[in-house]
């Protein structure tokens, strides 16, 4: 079986080049390993757990974000690095924004409440706390593509995870910190939801955050524009081609 890998190497000319490889493994991560063994030791990619939990091996297969370790490949598949992040080498991209985003959204436990925790409270944050920081959602997000200051899907899902944690005395700080370049900038296109390997739904999470913010008296700064100029219908959560950016 042939697969095509789009590669990038600062030291080589031309910088971007395609490589076709013949592989026998159908699991993509195993195919990468096979390439290093049989064809080219310089192929560069990240991997760790091989079981879909460390989040290190996200790539795009025929334009869709996938974890290499969980992906079966087909003839002539095209493999490339995830988008919206600087490519370091071949399939490895810069993920250093993670720390910054968590910091900006204050997504961590702050003051503890003394409330009793029930299983239903745990269920409420279970899905969001399964995030493996694989960056697939960032790669797919059109808003993040246009505006690197946008807080973006996983950071906002994490913000909701802590906002909804009953153990936390109050979530004012988080809600405040996601106003600018945050929840109102998302177009609710759902691209992030489509690609999340952990079944997380950042789009719904962002909607929930908008609800929480509204309760605290925040308003959508773009609302007026939508209503008067674009006739944006809030009940239609599909992709808005005009975007809000």
């Amino acid at each position, binding site marked *: 079986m042939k697969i095509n890998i789009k590669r990038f190497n600062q030291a080589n000319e031309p910088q971007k080049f395609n490589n076709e490889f013949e592989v026998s493994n159908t699991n993509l991560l195993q195919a990468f390993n096979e390439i290093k063994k049989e064809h080219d*030791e310089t192929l560069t990619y990240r991997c760790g757990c*091989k079981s879909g939990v460390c989040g290190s091996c996200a790539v795009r297969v025929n334009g869709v974000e996938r974890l290499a370790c969980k992906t079966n490949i087909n003839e002539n598949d095209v493999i490339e690095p995830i988008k919206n992040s600087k490519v370091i080498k071949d399939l*490895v991209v810069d993920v250093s924004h*993670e720390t910054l985003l968590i910091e900006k959204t204050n997504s961590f436990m702050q003051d503890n409440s003394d409330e009793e925790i029930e*299983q239903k409270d745990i269920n409420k*944050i279970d899905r969001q*706390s399964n995030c493996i*920081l694989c960056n697939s959602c960032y790669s797919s997000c059109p808003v993040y593509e246009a505006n690197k200051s946008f807080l973006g899907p996983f950071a906002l899902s994490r913000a909701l995870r802590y906002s909804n944690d009953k153990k936390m005395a109050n979530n004012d700080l988080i809600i405040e910190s996601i106003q600018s370049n945050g929840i109102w900038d998302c177009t609710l296109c759902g691209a992030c939801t489509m690609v999340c390997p952990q079944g997380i739904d950042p789009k719904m999470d962002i909607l929930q955050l908008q609800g929480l913010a509204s309760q605290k008296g925040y308003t959508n700064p773009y609302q007026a524009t939508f209503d008067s100029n674009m006739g944006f219908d809030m009940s239609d959560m599909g992709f808005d081609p005009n975007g809000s950016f």
Partner: protein
Amino acid sequence: MYDVIIIGSGAAGLSAALSAKEKNSKTLVISKTQPTHSQTVQAQGGINAVLYEDKDSIEQHVADTYNASKEISSKDNINFMCSNAKDTINWLDEIGVPFNRDKENKISQRKFGGTKKIRTCYSSDYTGLKILHTLFDQCIKNKIEFLNEHVLLDLIVEDKICKGVVILDILSGEIKEIYSKSIILATGGYAGIYQNFTTNSYSNTADGIAIALRAGAKLSNMEFVQFHPTALVNSNILISESARGEGGYLVDKDGNRFIDELKARDEVARAIYTRITNKESVYLDLRHLGLEKINDLMPQERRLALEFSNVKLEEELLPINPAAHYTMGGIKTNINGQTNIKNLYASGECAQANIHGANRLGGNSLLEIVTLGKHIGSYASENIDNEISVQDINSNKLELIKEEIENIFEYKNEINLYKCKDEVGQILFDKAGLFKDKNSLNEALKQINEIKNSLDEIGVVDKQKEYNKNLLEFLEFRNILDIALVVIESALNREESRGSHYRVDYPNIDVSYLKNSKAVLEENKVSCSFEDVV
């Protein structure tokens, strides 16, 4: 000059970092991966603690751990861990780990092998993932400094005092040195050296232990490698012990059960492997549990079986085999993480803190790494008595290492590194795995030494400075080889069978080996001996 440098960003490293920072130490975490890519995320089952003394007791937890260790552990050290377990869980709970709750809103617990009590706390099927991410979020909150994708190459040790580290910045390819008043190694275990026969992460390559050995540290109990009975055939992805705990069967090709599934991990693993060496397949059979129960109790196992083996647990048999999973041996420390080198500490799976002995109980590792990680982080912070200044350090380590790396780039590459890595895994699994004897071990020793002697024919193909994973994997491979040799030598020396260590030529436990093994490097050769358990 830092107060505390921590190498490794698994739960052991991050727990240590948080407590060092709490003591106002100038703290830095250096890790060869991104923090959340650490192997700790793979832990599924849970973390042990006696939370409610009406049903269980700390004494019972100590006794279970001691029994599993086959008596080569320290009851004092185990007691320290078990007595602090409740605080550990409460702390994790407070900082946001979403532990499951029972009907009375208490933290839920499940049953793990090797104990009669229900003692394992969990966060659905993702206990390690949720613990590690929560710790990471806390590190960001507390503004802990990180150097990610920086790999430790060597320790700077002068007069048996550790003063700093030499690291390679993977991104830029630069080699740097950083000084610190104390250094904590939290680099994980060495089951990953069993390449292709392990549940461990690809990044688990025994680095910290190999580097400590070369720097003069004492290693201990390196022959004790725990094999998990049920890993998926081909991928060696773990299927949690809960599958058998909840009533799953182990069956042969004719559908017959052949072992009591609830026996200790090492016994079950050996029974399975015996079948496999006779060219028979072994399966995990959960069909009788039904879809509902499977989905209720082990959704992640069902997903793994489907995604990686294309098997529906409720309808089909799941082919499994044993795989190297956890390593009890490591850098010898006391309960404060201190090694035989001043100011060098070790914590987590890379350490041998006299707790797990010849066998580790499921759920005790997460407990150890967080409890001792925290303790060692604050102990190291409080014991900074050495006022070394940069002027006192005369090390030429940095130059030596730079030269060494330059040399590696000159090696010819006639042999493929990745094929060699596979070969080492195969040799270790076949000859120093579940069953071993003097002959097999000697053969393994010879073969690994041969590979080691051909390192300059393996070399690296990628000659670029930036993000050279090929070079990184070559350096890791040297560590794998060094530790493989120690594992084999230690296994040769322990002429008995105890816990996870099974010698076909010495099938019984032998009281004269009621000792810790010890391995040090003397004139570039591994030297093994035994010492009393204290």
